[in-house]
């Protein structure tokens, strides 16, 4: 039902791709009518997730899939996936103790706060898929 032509697939494989992914996400957000604040929230969330891939995934490689959501007032979804070692304890990663620290932690609680919805599909040895969504208000 969604217009697959508007889906953006961005390979994540290094610093440049973190910037590319968040720029594309911001652009799509803008074209979907999100205001400046929400554009920033979305760009920042994508940046956090892409950075996790570069930092923790096998070879630092993964993918970001950015797509518009047609339901309701419309929204935007980003699915960041990698085939890395996976998150051993998702609940712990979502707890606030894992937010700050010097380069430690995956910034997941912060990302969650910025978005309306977040789903994490991960486990030891089976990679990670993080899906985030934000809706137009």
């Amino acid at each position, binding site marked *: 039902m969604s217009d697959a032509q508007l889906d953006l697939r961005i390979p994540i494989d290094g610093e440049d791709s973190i910037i590319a992914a968040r720029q594309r996400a911001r652009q799509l957000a803008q074209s979907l009518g999100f205001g400046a*604040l929400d554009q920033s929230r979305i760009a920042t969330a994508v940046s956090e997730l892409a950075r996790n891939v570069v930092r923790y995934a096998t070879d630092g490689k993964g993918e970001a899939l950015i797509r518009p959501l047609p339901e309701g007032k419309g929204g935007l979804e980003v699915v960041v996936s990698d085939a890395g070692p996976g998150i051993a304890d998702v609940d712990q990663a979502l707890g606030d103790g894992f937010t700050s620290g010097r380069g430690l932690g995956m910034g997941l609680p912060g990302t969650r706060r910025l978005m309306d919805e977040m789903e994490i599909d991960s486990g030891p040895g089976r990679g990670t898929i993080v899906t985030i969504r934000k809706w137009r208000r």
Partner: protein
Amino acid sequence: MKDQERSATQLIEEQRATINELQTPVIEVWDGILALPIVGSVDTARAQDMNERLLDRIIQTRSEIVILDITAVPVVDTAVAKHLLETVSSARLLGAEVLIVGLSSKTAMTLVHLGLDLGGVITRTTLAKGLELAFERLGLRVVASESSRDGRQS
């Protein structure tokens, strides 16, 4: 049919924006001082809208002091306190200081019992006191003029 839906939705959005602005106007009470009188309950959507407009206004007016007046906010609980603190923090990032005025004794006790001390934010009980402090911060003083109030020259 769809066009009608869209313009009806648009109209509702515009009206909502207007209501938000009327409910919490950002007033420039003096050169560099903004006042934000909040009337009624504050939910997340309202807090975010208020904050966004305030930050834009800070930039527009180059204000350095913001007075948040919560006299007319009926309930100040953890959620509301969190929103207020977020406003304080974001305004600070734009170089502005936020003073909170209008705390009732009831609110003060509630906050204490909740274990919230508003993190060192400066507060005053009334808008007038807040304004006084704002002037002080900006190095301003209010002085009586020479002619008396009813117009007679002294």
